[in-house]
């Protein structure tokens, strides 16, 4: 199970180098003040390897969504640095951040993923439209065929099932060939069959098209589709798991819920602290 997959430690030791699509270096995020203070991220350092499917898992309130938002440029960090490819996000103005999101990042959300007034096809090409760029026709066709939406392109979101909507969202995220795709509980609102379809599709796009995807989830069977799982608790990365299965992930998660928080040094976790 321990293999040569780039681990989080590489990010720590060599910021600015390595084959990472996105990196976070000692980022911290605190919400509220005084008694109401919540440490969402506590000096997290993490690298998202290029061309891999990474899942971020953790119990509610572990900071997994915050981590994703911060890495995707949707939220700001209190300290530390975030990189997408070679670009540092921290310190960018809204305008530059927006541009970066538009050009380099794809998003898939849990719900309300599409613009209701636009057709499926228009939704897919929306980021390119916003940028004023022409879609790469061949690539677009490939993406559409992969998600199997060809007969539904003229439909509005309200005429599509939840699974189909999410596939449109996936296609939109892929169509502009972003550096990295962030998926926030993409299967949270779907039944298990539709969810499995979407996850398989995400995995395939990583394997076949070399896309980089980061997915936040709390569902162990969803995480099992990933190449690597990062476990987050109390704002810290406490574990990573390569080649996860649903059982192993579930097992690991149980450990958190019973309060058995592994003793990890504050800051970066030990490299290769794989479960067992």
């Amino acid at each position, binding site marked *: 199970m321990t293999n040569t997959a780039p681990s989080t430690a590489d990010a720590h030791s060599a910021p600015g180098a390595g084959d990472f699509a996105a990196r976070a270096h000692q980022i911290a995020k605190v919400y509220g003040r005084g008694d109401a203070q919540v440490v969402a991220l506590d000096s997290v350092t993490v690298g998202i390897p290029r061309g891999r499917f990474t899942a971020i898992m953790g119990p509610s309130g572990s900071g997994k969504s915050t981590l994703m938002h911060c890495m995707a440029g949707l939220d700001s960090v209190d300290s530390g640095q975030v990189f997408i490819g070679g670009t540092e996000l921290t310190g960018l103005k809204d*305008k530059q951040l927006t541009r970066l999101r538009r050009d380099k990042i794809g*998003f898939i*959300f849990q719900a309300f993923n599409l613009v209701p*007034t636009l057709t499926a096809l228009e939704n897919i090409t929306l980021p390119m439209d*916003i940028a004023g760029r022409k879609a790469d026709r061949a690539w677009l066709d490939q993406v559409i065929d992969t998600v199997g939406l060809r007969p539904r392109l003229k439909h509005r979101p309200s005429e599509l099932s939840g699974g189909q909507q999410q596939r449109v969202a996936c296609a939109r995220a892929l169509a502009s060939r972003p550096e990295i795709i962030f998926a926030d509980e993409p299967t949270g609102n779907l039944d298990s069959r539709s969810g499995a379809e979407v996850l398989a599709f995400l995995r395939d796009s990583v394997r076949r098209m070399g896309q980089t995807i980061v997915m936040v989830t709390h569902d162990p069977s969803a995480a099992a589709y990933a190449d690597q799982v990062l476990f987050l608790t109390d704002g810290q990365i406490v574990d990573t798991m390569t080649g996860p299965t649903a059982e192993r992930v579930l097992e690991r998660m149980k450990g958190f819920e019973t309060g058995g928080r592994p003793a990890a040094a504050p800051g970066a976790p030990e490299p290769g602290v794989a479960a067992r």
Partner: protein
Amino acid sequence: MMGKVTRRNLAAHKIRLVLTAVAVILGVAFVAGTLIFTDSMNKQFDDLFSRVGKNVAVDVRAKKVVGGDDDGQAAQPVPASVLAALKGVDGVKDPQGNVNGYAAVVGRDGKIVGSGGQGPPQLGTNWNTIGSFDLKSGRAPHGPAEVIIDAETAKKGRLAIGDTVGVVSSGAAQRMRIVGLIDTGNLMGASVTAFDTPTAQKLLLKPGYYSDIEMSSSGPSETQLRDRVAKVLPDGVEAVTGTKMRDENKSDVAQIMGFFRTFLLVFALISIFVGAFIIFNTFSMLVAQRTRELALLRAIGAARPQVTRAVIGEAVAVGFVGSTLGLAAGAGLAALLQGQMGDAGSGGLTFTATPVIWSYVVGIVVTVVSAYFPARRAAKIPPVAAMRDDVALPQRTLRIRVALGSLLTLVGAGLIAAGLAGNGGNPAVPVGAGAFAVFIGVAMLAPVISVPVVKVLGWPFARLMGAPGRLARQNALRNPRRTAATAAALMIGLALITTVNVLGATMRASIDQQVDAQFGADYLVQATGGDITPDATQKIKAAPGVESASPTYEGTAKLAGDRGTYMSGDVGVIAKAARLKIVSGGTAIGADGLMVNESTAKDKGWHVGSTVPALFPDGKTEQLKVTGIFAKSDLIGGRIVSEQVYLRHTVRPSVDAVLVNAAKTDAATKTSIESALKAYPNLKVSDQSSLKKDARKQVDGFVTFLSILLAMSVIIAAVGVVNTLALSVIERTREIGLLRAIGISRRQLRRMIRIESIVIAVFGAVLGMGIGVAFGAALQNALKGQGLGVLAVPYGTLGVYLVVAAVIGVLAALWPAWRAGRMDVLKAISTE
């Protein structure tokens, strides 16, 4: 429980409610402002007229035989011999003959001080002790070269006691010395010039005559004295009590003010009507946004009426707050209006209970009625909606709306047609009701119309502005009812403004055409006040380049019982100057001749040779013979009477205009006539182009005035656009968050909202202009016979209004777009 929900809701959605309230505030402000302003003006006039003639017990004056609006010139004077007779009546104290007429002070620049012609009147009078005014400084005038003027005019003309000024009444301006200043109090801008009685008679009336004779009583009551006085009066002269005289004065003014008030209230009503659309739309949107919350209330046991009541309760609260603020704003508006009136509006504001009551009634009733339908829809939300993720309110199909809207539009158009056809009664009522019905009808049809129109309007934006343009177009199409209701509010104001502009352009075009077709004289000399005396006519005749100058008169008479004005003078000249087409008979009118137009002749069954009884203001009846019948003329009117007849029945002939023919019509001739009339600053020389220009100026002034009044409703409609956009932005929070997440910039987002706003506003403008042109054409068609012969659509002006509508769209989008841009992306995405 529901009361608490209502209160919490009000507290939770302050911005939405403020936006709704703004519509109420503006509408109510207009109503309250109108009422307070007219109340204040009424009070001022009342004060003024109870001061005027306050000591008068009995007034002796000429009987009104012909009736109608005697403007002082038409009124018959009272012979001075009556005054002597009155002195012998027991109980009569201090009888004073009044002489009233036109007199104005000529300033150092050779022009009349104050406004020459238009605006407040310039009154000339004789100075007597019973009069209404006090001498402020100086002394009473004596002799033909002394005058006293009101202090206000002296200030305006920078004149003082001892100065010698020109005074113009009839004839050339006379040099007179100012010997005193009159304290007139608040005369609303009118000027007063007073002379001693013989001078006044000579200048203003006719030696040996008075306008009327006022007296106080040495004991007997007004009615007793009146009866005693009546016994010594000759025919044609009557005595009335001072109370009656004062009441008549007051009621004249009250009538004018009443008309003015109604006029303003019509515009206030239009604003309220537009406001109702906004309120309706806002409450509809609020209910739609709160569907889940209301469904939850239903699910946990709230009855339908309770839900309705909760929404209506909010409406009452909004209406109350809006009315209160509107009332305050109305007082401000009234003060502003009064300030604008300059001299006329310096009497402060008068507050009565009426504006207060009406403000609350109008504000609350309109809000509640407008919120009623949304409230009922709220109650129809099924409880299960609370459990569903995305709920749409049950929407009835548009089919019923289309049917109902078409019906209403047709009924409205029918009413307008019937009203304009003029089948008895006041046409304003059916026409107004018809316009109202058309507005509601078209507003109901608007959702259907909006889809194709918005598609077309949005097309260039979608093509040129990329994704934001396309999204904006889709957003405008997304809820046709909402788009339509927002646009409909704008439609009303623009429809009325367009109507006014079409009518204005039509008037201008028609006047131009009339002048071209019917004005045959080279020049026309008219008085802006006072008379044109024979010496002035002589001066014109003598001016270099002038070939002939012929005076024309205007009089009033009852022809076979029908009161009306007539023209008189040299009929040959008049016929040529007006390019009269003689249908039968000729222009040889003789000593007792009468000419009428075709339609009058047809109505009355007169033909050349008919004898017509005519009653004149001097109380005498004469048989006139019809000597000619002419084709319709807008310049002449329907009747021409022989000059000899006119002079026979008129104590003081009053020249209406002098028709001038010249060898050449060029600037030099005009200047020559003008310099010949230098001593007559009250006379104005016009040629064809200046007649057109003056008429145009008047029409333009009127159009501008009405447009400004209507602009209020456009402002309210603009608030409606702000409202719709702001609520849409709130409603689409998550969508906006999503767009921001996938890379739409703030600028693009703002542009998207701005374009949606422009599209909605322009849609409303297009609808309104369509209706406005139709209204204008209908009115022109109905008034074809009254001088509106040519329909003209001012495309340029309408184009400007279209641009204005787009600008309103841009402005209305400012705040909602700013809000949308400021939204936190993360929060937006995770909003429920």
